[in-house]
């Protein structure tokens, strides 16, 4: 049986080979990176246009919005880079190809997710970091070591929430023949993440905090760095929510893996 260290070694071995293989699709990588760049740019320009006609959004300035968005871009990268395979789960299940993941003496989620490594997510990560640096300079934020550590922890928690939402939605394919609507919904809901939760009222704010906790993806963490005075005590729950949600997601995945009976062959 593999130890944690061996899993990590194996991961690097597989990804190094995978990236080498992907190098022949360099054009694909470049085009999708450019695409991703422009789609982020589009969101940012919506902010700019919006702020041309209004001075602030529920009390949040343009640069603050950019900061929240940059945080979101960073937080979503691990999901895109490491868990990209989740989008292919339903095909593998429908075709019966998923059966092969049971044959190796490995954790099935590890084996499945290690089969893809999304390089263009790295471009997004870099863009997010640059944008975060730019907005925090413009906002005059200072970064003592303690704050940097909290930032890392916050990114980690937010990533876990995003990964959980994607994997949980993907896992529905174990039970539903056409799981596309579930994935599409999860993908849509995620789009609310880079906005201040305070612009939503009552029921939505409650839902985005406690039911589909996308508030923890970007807003609550960013609030800590932007307006520490207004910080919701919920922020301190973020790591717990991230880890708890991922544990729950893993349970759901495991249930799916164990109850899937495959296709006759």
């Amino acid at each position, binding site marked *: *049986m593999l130890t944690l260290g061996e899993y990590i070694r194996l991961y690097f*071995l597989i990804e190094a080979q*995978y990236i080498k293989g992907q190098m022949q699709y360099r054009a694909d990588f470049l085009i999708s990176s450019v695409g991703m760049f422009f789609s982020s740019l589009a969101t940012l320009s919506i902010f700019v246009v919006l702020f041309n006609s209004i001075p602030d959004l529920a009390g949040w300035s343009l640069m603050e919005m950019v900061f929240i968005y940059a945080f979101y871009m960073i937080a979503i990268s691990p999901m895109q880079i490491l868990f990209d395979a989740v989008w292919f789960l339903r095909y593998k299940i429908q075709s019966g190809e998923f*059966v092969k993941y049971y044959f190796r*003496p*490995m954790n099935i989620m590890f084996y499945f997710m290690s089969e893809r490594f999304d390089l263009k997510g790295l471009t997004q990560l870099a863009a997010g970091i640059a944008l975060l640096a730019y907005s925090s300079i413009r906002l005059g934020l200072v970064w003592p070591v303690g704050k940097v550590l909290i930032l890392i922890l916050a990114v980690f928690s937010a990533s876990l929430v995003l990964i959980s939402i994607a994997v949980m939605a993907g896992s529905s394919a174990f039970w539903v023949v056409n799981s596309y609507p579930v994935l599409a919904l999860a993908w849509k809901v995620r789009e609310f993440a880079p906005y201040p939760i305070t612009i939503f009222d009552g029921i939505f704010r409650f839902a985005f905090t406690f039911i589909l906790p996308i508030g923890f993806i970007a807003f609550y963490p960013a609030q800590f760095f932007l307006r520490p005075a207004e910080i919701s005590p919920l922020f301190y729950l973020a790591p717990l929510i991230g880890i708890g949600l991922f544990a729950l997601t893993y349970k759901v995945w495991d249930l799916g893996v*164990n109850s899937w*009976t495959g296709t*006759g*062959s």
Partner: protein
Amino acid sequence: MTLIHIQGLSKHFKILNRHEGLKGAVRDLFSGDYRTVQAVDGISLDIEPGEIVGYIGPNGAGKSTTIKMMTGILKPSAGVLQVNGLVPYDNRIRQAMIMGVVFGQRTQLWWDLPVIESFKILKEIYKVDQKMFDEHLGMFHELVGLKALYSQQARTLSLGQRMLCDITASFLHNPQVVFLDEPTIGLDVSIKAKIRSLILELNRTRNTTIILTTHDLGDVEALCRRIIIIDKGKILYDGDIKKVNALFGAYRTLKLQIKDYSEATLAALQDRLTGTFGAGHGITIAQTEDCWTDVTIDQARTPLADVLAFIMTNFTVEDVRIVEISMENVVRKIYDGALK
């Protein structure tokens, strides 16, 4: 010690009866309208280390389902199943260490990687040491000349080449038992021959237990001493291949296309064959939907050449094919008491 012990093993699937349209889909969500398929129905068998067992039967007999239970993917509905003393479903990872699996035409190589890189990843997963790894690859190369394929990506290999690599990969960690589910499906004669010699050699030199399902009775004849025949989830026969060999070894089917064929031709054929070759000629005649007349001949009783010559001189035959007896016919003959 027995490697695989199976006692009264069953597996059924519950299948939702789907209804049409949107209304139907909503109804399906809440309905308990299930139908059960008994895929494996109370089988018992024991397999010893080093055996090569042919596990055969017609489509839908339950072969793959049995293998999925033995490899720990499916949980049995009832019965006892132990591999190496452990329950596969509860010990999947541990069991996977001592097993090799090749499933139909689905490759387990990393699709975009050169074959050799897949092998190296497997080496890490199973913790095969370098010396053993080199030794294995050397041996495979000698047997089937694999080296030329090493630098190719799995997705660029032909079906037969990929199957060779997949089988090689399944033996890489020197497993105690290898399951091969239809390893020769869709392959040509020369690759089939290579695969057969590879399997035999690995079994001989390493005493690896092999469980093979196939629809190609040639595979069974070439590889197995013991065969298990399963149909509708139940074992029909388990034993020495010699006894059943006669069933598919001696039988051949002549497929004929007879000019101006009519019901009367069939009757005439029947009568004249009996007249010429006597009552115990062991020849059966059947008409297939696609206008062929199937004449199945037991060569132990009547030489095929004589029957063919007789038919050719007495009827106008437009086309002839000779085929080996099919799995379905073997099973039918067993039901008809051929082994009693």
